């Protein structure tokens, strides 16, 4: 199978939209599902939500946030090239129903995941209010698409460089007090989802959150993406990625999210990552270590 990149666009700092020709995926994908992309033989597979799909042309759109080895490699591919492998659609389709008034709250890269959900909600006949939070104007993305899909939209930036200054959760709190809201969809940072879940729990409003723990292959085989939901472990790759926000154990999730921090960044933040293994300067003993990993030394 050949997954050719048909279109590529820079959306914001380090964020790119990539359209890939994958007719098998495009014909079956539902909102909330994702694909696993392996860029080349040397990198991990990374889960990517399918933001948009065109069944006629057989094209799916992915939003790539270049943070790690694999996503950077994917961002470097140009039109006409294709990634090594792509599997999908994976994950449970999101719960989409006719609720009435729905608030969709997303921060950071979460906007990419909430856009297809908003579109499906709108199609079902809901009134959708979108709240988009970003660190600054530089990293805000998909603004126009969200404006088209949502009936009303509130944009906040942490540093006040665009529209309102403040946190997305503050807006949600305000909206919850003013209107009678039937359902909330949240995607983004763990802190935001936790705060939103707590707020809605007080009011007795259902909330669906989309979680992004580390995944190895997205097939429900290894348990890397286990999250505590309703007191027991569930796998985000086959049981999710969307869960009932009231049941998710966010303190556990916070710890699980650290398990996938890329070595260098994590080393700075938490001391996580093996300093010896991360040094890039070639060392003799490292070369022997590589050998011994794959071939037994002769005795």
């Amino acid at each position, binding site marked *: 199978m050949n997954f050719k990149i048909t279109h590529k666009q820079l959306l914001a700092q380090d964020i790119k939209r990539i359209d890939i020709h994958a007719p098998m995926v495009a014909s079956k994908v539902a909102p909330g599902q994702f694909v696993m992309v392996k860029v080349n033989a040397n990198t991990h597979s990374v889960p990517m939500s399918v933001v948009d799909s065109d069944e006629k042309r057989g094209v799916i759109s992915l939003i790539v946030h270049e943070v790690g080895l694999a996503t950077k490699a994917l961002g470097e591919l140009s039109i006409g090239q294709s990634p090594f492998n792509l599997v999908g659609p994976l994950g449970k389709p999101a719960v989409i129903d006719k609720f009435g008034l729905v608030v969709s709250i997303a921060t950071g890269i979460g906007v990419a995941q909430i856009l297809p959900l908003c579109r499906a909600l709108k199609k079902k006949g809901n009134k959708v209010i979108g709240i988009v939070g970003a660190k600054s104007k530089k990293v805000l993305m998909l603004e126009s698409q969200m404006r088209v899909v949502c009936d009303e939209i509130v944009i906040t930036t942490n540093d006040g460089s665009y529209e309102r200054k403040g946190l997305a959760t503050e807006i949600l709190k305000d909206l919850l007090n003013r209107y009678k809201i039937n359902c909330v969809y949240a995607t983004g940072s763990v802190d935001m989802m936790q705060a939103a879940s707590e707020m809605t729990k007080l009011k007795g409003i259902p909330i669906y959150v989309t979680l992004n723990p580390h995944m190895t292959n997205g*097939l429900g085989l*290894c348990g890397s993406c286990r999250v505590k939901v309703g007191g027991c472990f569930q796998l985000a790759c086959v049981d999710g990625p969307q869960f009932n926000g009231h049941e998710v154990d966010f303190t556990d999730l916070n710890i699980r999210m650290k398990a996938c921090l890329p*070595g260098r960044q994590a080393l700075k933040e938490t001391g996580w990552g093996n300093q010896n293994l991360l040094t890039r300067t070639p060392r003799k003993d490292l070369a022997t270590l590589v050998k011994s990993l794959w071939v037994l030394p002769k005795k």
Partner: protein
Amino acid sequence: MGFTKKISADEARRCPQCAQPVCLQGCPLGIDIPGFIRLLRESDAVSALERIKKDNPFPAICGRVCPAPCENACIFHEEGSPIAIRALERYAADFGHKPNSRIKTVIKSNGKKVAIVGSGPSAMMAASFLLKAGLNVVMFEAANQPGGVLRYGIPEFRLPQHILEGQFEELQSQGLELHTNIFVGRMKSLEELARTFDALLLATGSSLPNFVSMQGEHLVGVYYAEEFLMRLQVLSKANVLSCAGDLIRGTRTVVIGKGYAALDAARMAVRLGQQVHWVFGGLEEEMGLSNYDLKESLEEGINIQAPFEALKIMGDPQGLVEGVQCHPLEIVEGLGGLSLYPSKEGPIVFEAQTVILANGQKANSFLATMTPQLKVNSNGHFWIDEKTSMTSLEKVFAVASAVAGSMTVVEAFAGGKAVAKQIMEYLK
């Protein structure tokens, strides 16, 4: 290590060729063990391989990763020096190829089509026997390379990937149609497959780790053995070091549990430069390893701490693992044999930055949730009719770990062989 010609001949001559061979009872595949060893006495690897291949089409895999129940059954086992049957099988598999063995006679197809979901050991074995019977076999694998546990659960140093690829090439030359990247249940439903095929075999295994409720299990740096091995296995050789840094922190690792998954994870950790303690709450003989593998693990530098009971995993406020608290056990000889009691000494803490848990696997209930007509047992495995191996759906069969939970590679091979016969019976 593989045997040389001379060592293998010497080892084969050591076999007494018992009148009533006990090793045969040990082998789930029923290989003619004394027969092929007799041929190896004269270093006739070609005939020995032919003899093995009658019952086991994959001696190169079995000769490396089988837990060797035949060696445990051998009459010399009590003395501590059983005949190295596994190593002899490997010798025959590695050196017994005829020069033009790649050219295969084409088997005439009888037009019936069988789909196999999964490509692990039981699927391979079933495919091999079904192909020999002249059926068209199509295999669906969700990952991008076939092999299942042989690919993702067993490290390269124990089963080199080129051996596995060789076996699949052989199967494909016999007419196997292999589709990777097809996640049955999500991308193709079972009903869809059942419509186009005459029989369907679910060899989906039981790959999900058993989540234990040990305190501190959620901390950063705690892995399940299957997860740990898979995450290393999907990396290429080129960047295993840069990415292993994400996986392993510090210099000390504690492995808790038993069996081959624990052994492989521990050996992998040693090879990543870790000091490994293997904590096990029983006697060394109960670890489920063959003598040879246990000896090899000690040689490699794994410190086996047994019997110790792991109480909890301790972490710092940031959620990183700091150590494992263990309670030493005392062996007490009672009326009903040996029993273990917590000793009077207090608990000990093994310092560790990485903890690997190996508690066996549980059913992967994904397919059952997607197809509600498929009946499952209370433990999540597929329900099957014991006589025919058929599930609650007509013409859908299930096998090995998908039915009975975690098992060894050779048991899965034997399961695949048995179910192939039952499918042929059904298709008659």
